[in-house]
């Protein structure tokens, strides 16, 4: 779009008043996004009495906080990896069908709901399915298979990963479909006319093209799982060792009275990790979109 020519006609007055149109948006975002972020950043560097300090970050050294970070990183990576692969496969199965068809609409609607609906509904679903009195548990028990013979695993990381898959896979479908949509049939035909097989196509044509997007989407899934609070909160009501639960705990416990900066320091650390991951995602996405726009 030749945007520069659009700017000319109004002459000098344009400069003084055009920007006013952007004020409401920036004012709103400034108040509800930048200000809270600022509060976090500032709060993590101050103690209760207002003196500048790095002590809040030093306290992250505590064993159970390190363990929360580790646990969160582990479940985020594993659920992102599995979710990315399964989601990509599912997205491919959908995209190879009718672009206007019912299947695609069904899957994208379901994905849209599940990707946002984490938390409470999923925790309830998990308990209803594989909880101690769950449908699948009792079904298998009646056939002689006790899935809890080795211990109650739904509250362990493996159970959390399982429940995370229920919003990771849909999210992957949603963010990876546009990339798959961009694959041109001509490329497949070109590969075949040059004598290549399916494997050649994926290994040398589609694979390298999709790789940056795939990686980027995996990173997005990681950030999503890392930030997730509702699911673990609804499942592990007695508290578990995950960083989002730790932050919530600090916001409401007595430690908050004596050390308010710790929750903010943890929040800031989380933000930094997620910012890094999301920036990588953006870079990778722009590389892919060059080819697949």
């Amino acid at each position, binding site marked *: 779009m030749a945007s520069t020519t659009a700017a000319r006609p109004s002459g000098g*007055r344009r400069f003084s*008043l*055009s920007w*006013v*149109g952007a*004020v*409401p948006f920036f004012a709103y975002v400034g108040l509800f996004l930048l200000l809270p972020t600022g509060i976090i950043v500032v709060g993590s560097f101050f103690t209760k009495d207002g003196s500048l300090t790095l002590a809040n970050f030093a306290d992250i050294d505590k*064993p*159970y906080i390190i*363990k*929360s970070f580790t646990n969160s990183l582990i479940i985020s990576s594993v659920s992102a990896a599995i979710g990315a692969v399964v989601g990509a496969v599912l997205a491919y199965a959908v995209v190879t069908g009718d672009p206007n068809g019912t299947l695609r609409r069904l899957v994208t609607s379901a994905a849209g709901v599940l990707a946002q609906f984490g938390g409470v509904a999923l925790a309830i679903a998990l*308990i209803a399915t594989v*909880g*101690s*009195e769950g449908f699948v548990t009792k079904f298998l028990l009646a056939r002689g298979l006790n899935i*809890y013979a080795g*211990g*109650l695993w739904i*509250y362990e990381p493996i159970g959390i990963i399982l429940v995370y898959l229920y919003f990771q896979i849909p999210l992957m479908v949603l963010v990876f479909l546009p990339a798959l949509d961009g694959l041109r049939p001509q490329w497949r035909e070109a590969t075949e006319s040059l004598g290549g097989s399916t494997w050649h196509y994926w290994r040398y044509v589609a694979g390298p093209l999709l790789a940056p997007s795939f990686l980027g989407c995996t990173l997005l899934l990681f950030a999503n799982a890392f930030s997730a609070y509702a699911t673990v909160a609804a*499942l*592990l*009501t*007695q*508290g*578990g*060792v995950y960083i989002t639960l730790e932050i919530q*705990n600090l916001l*409401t*416990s*007595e*430690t908050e009275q004596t050390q308010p900066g710790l929750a903010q320091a943890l929040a800031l650390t989380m933000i930094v990790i997620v910012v890094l991951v999301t920036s990588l995602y953006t870079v990778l996405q722009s590389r892919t979109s060059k080819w697949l726009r």
Partner: protein
Amino acid sequence: MKWSSPVRQLGLAVVAFLLVAACGSSPGGTASCNAKTATSATDCGGIDGLVTAAKAEGALNVIALPPDWANYGAVIAGFTAKYGIPINSANPNGSSQQEVDAFDGTPNAPDVVDVGQAVALANTAKFAPYKVATWNDIPAGAKEPTGLWFNDYGGYMGIGYDSSKVPGGTISSVADLLGSGFKGKVALAGDPTKSNQGLNGVIMAGVANGGSLDDVSKGVDFFKQLKKAGNYVPVVGTAATVKAGQTPVLFEWDYLSTSHGKDVSTWKIFVPSNAIIGGYYSQAINKAAPHPAAARLWMEYLYSDAGQNLWLKGGARPVRMAAMTTAGTLDAAAAAALPQVPGTPQVPTGDQTSKASAYVVANWSQAVS
């Protein structure tokens, strides 16, 4: 012209939204008495004056009152039926700590709280003093002299369990829970760093394992071992988890296990004879209560014979029980149905609970993570 339509439209939308929001929130009614500083009903011209002021306020905010906890469902319904004041009940399974944390100065904050001793003692600066009409019936050790907090009902800490899920169908000692037949079955009914019930569960486990009311470390150690053995479930035990079978063995107040028996027919309770820990909860009024008159009326209702008997029906021991027995106003049938106590109870003092709470807050995450 340059104040373009989009900006104008946005401005109109914002104004419309704010208008709707403002119309929705009704300001507090003018009270005939200054309920905020009333320290007893007489300051408001007697109970009737208090009722008028409360009705003018139009609502009451309560928090952390599950309907099946000591029959609170009936208590709440009774209050609304008697005075026509609707009650907003927030966060029914909240802990004592969360109750006082909700005092954020907004109109959604709770007016009254029902908290454990440690939390009550630690937060007296946030409470307003008030003496109910039946003040003298409350024993001296069960209330703060100026009325900042006062005990309401109590019970004994026990282990509720589903006898059909437990090896041998019965529990005879707390140490049994460490056995292999209890894998993934044992839970607390609250987070002990925040919840009074959770804390007393840990205290009871400690006393039963050789500790004392002054030393809760054995209790924390017990749960550490429980977690290591794979027997501990990181889920807060509630009526729903009991019914869903998630928490078949639960450290809970004896009056709660009575209500759980209604959901699970094989539910029993075990109170260890060497560790009968009794505990009372305390009522307090928010100093910055959004509905001060309704808050005080609620207290009058709770400490009336009707209110105390409703708690009794829920299996809890109301604080005015001794006085009401003498006066003959106690519900005899409900009193006879109270859970049995197999020995001499020990009741931790305020200091002991505070000390235990401090220890648990500092060491719990480490132990069960």
